[in-house]
C-alpha cells in the first residue's frame, strides 16, 4: 500500500517536474555545456592536431568543430587552397537533456536528502556528456573528412564501426538510460524501489544458497 502511494506520487511529481526542469535547462544549456565543450576542445586538439583547430561556441547556442582544412569542389584541402575553413555544427543539447531528465526523476522521488545526491548524480553525468560530445565530433570527422581522417599516420584513430556504435549509443541510449540507471541506483533504498529490489536480492541469495547446497 505504501509502495502504491510512493509510485503514484513519483509519477505525478515526475510529470509535473519535467516541464520546469526542461525549461530551466533550455535557459542554462550553453552554460551547462561550457566545461564539456572546453574539455572536448582540449582532447580533440591534442588527439588530432593535424585535423582539429578547435571546438567553439558559435552563434545562438550553437557549437562548431573547426578543422585544419578548407574545402574545394567538395574535397577537404589545406586552408591555403581554400577561402573557407571547414567546420561542422555540433549540438551538445542532444546529450545534455539527460540533466533535466535526471533532475525530474530525482526530485520526484520521496526521500530524506535531495541536494547531495543530486550533485553526485550531476558529477556522474558530466563524464558521459563529455564522452558523448567527443563521439559526435569523431563521427563528424569520420563522415565528412573520410580517409583523410581515418588514415592518419602516427595517430590512433578508432575503427569506423566502433565510432558509429559509440555515436549511436551516446546519442540514442545514454542520455535517457544514464539518468534512469543513476536514479535506480541512488534510490534503491527508497519506499518506491525497496520492495522490488529487496525481493530480487532475496531471490539472488536463495539461488546462491541453492547452488551451494547442490
Amino acid at each position, binding site marked *: 500500500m505504501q509502495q502504491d502511494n510512493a509510485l503514484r506520487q513519483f509519477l505525478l511529481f515526475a510529470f509535473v517536474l519535467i516541464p520546469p526542469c526542461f525549461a530551466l535547462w533550455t535557459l542554462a544549456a550553453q552554460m551547462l555545456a561550457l566545461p564539456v565543450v572546453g574539455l572536448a576542445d582540449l582532447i580533440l586538439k591534442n588527439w588530432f592536431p593535424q585535423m582539429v583547430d578547435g571546438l567553439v561556441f558559435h552563434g545562438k547556442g550553437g557549437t562548431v568543430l573547426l578543422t585544419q582544412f578548407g574545402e574545394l569542389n567538395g574535397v577537404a584541402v589545406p586552408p591555403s587552397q581554400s577561402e573557407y575553413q571547414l567546420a561542422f555544427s555540433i549540438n551538445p543539447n542532444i546529450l545534455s537533456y539527460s540533466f533535466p531528465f535526471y533532475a525530474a526523476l530525482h526530485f520526484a522521488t520521496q526521500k530524506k536528502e535531495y541536494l547531495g545526491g543530486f550533485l553526485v548524480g550531476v558529477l556522474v553525468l558530466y563524464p558521459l556528456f563529455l564522452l558523448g560530445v567527443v563521439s559526435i565530433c569523431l563521427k563528424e570527422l569520420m563522415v565528412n573528412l573520410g580517409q583523410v581522417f581515418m588514415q592518419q599516420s602516427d595517430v590512433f584513430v578508432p575503427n569506423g564501426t566502433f565510432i558509429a556504435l559509440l555515436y549511436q549509443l551516446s546519442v*540514442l541510449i545514454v542520455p535517457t*538510460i544514464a539518468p*534512469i540507471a543513476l536514479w535506480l541506483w541512488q534510490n534503491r533504498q527508497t519506499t518506491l524501489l525497496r520492495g522490488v529490489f529487496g525481493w530480487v*536480492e532475496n531471490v539472488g541469495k536463495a539461488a546462491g544458497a541453492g547452488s551451494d547446497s547442490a
Partner: protein
Amino acid sequence: MKRFFLIFSAVLIALFTIEMLNPVQAHVVVPFTSVLAKISAALVSPFDPNVIAMGKVLQFRDTGFAVSIESGCNGVEATIVLIAAVVAFPADWKSRAIAIGVGFLAVQALNIVRIISLFYLGDWNKDVFTWVHLYLWPALIMLDVLIVFILYLRHLARREEAAAAHAAG
C-alpha cells in the same frame, strides 16, 4: 543489482549492434517503421483527410509538410532497452515474454502519440517541433519504459509474496 546492470548492459549492446546491421535495418526496422507511419496516418485520417503516408513519410496533402520517421523515432531503441531490462531481471521466461509483449505495445502506443504530435507541431512551428522532438519526447518515451518495468517488477514481487504466504499458510 550489480548482476542486473551487467546483464542489462551486455544485452543492450548486443541487441543495439544487431539493430544497426544493414540486413536488419532493411528487412525489419524500415518495414516496421513504414507500418508505424501507416498506423499513424490511419488514426489521423478520419479526423484529418489531408494526411497521407508514403513508406515511412507522413505528409499533409495541402501544405506539403512532411515528416520522415527515422531511426531513433520508431521506438525500437526504447523496446531494446525494455527487453534488456526484462531479460536481466530474474524471472520465469513466460513472465518475461508477457512483459516484453505488453511493454512493446505500451511503448509503441506512446510512440504513435509522439509521431502524430510531432507531425502537427512541425506543421505549426519548426522550433517547437525541434525542441520537443530532440529533447522532450525521448525522455518521455524512456519514462514510459521505466514505468512499464517498475510495474512488471511489482507484479513479480506481489506474486512472490502471494506464493510465500500460500506456502506458509
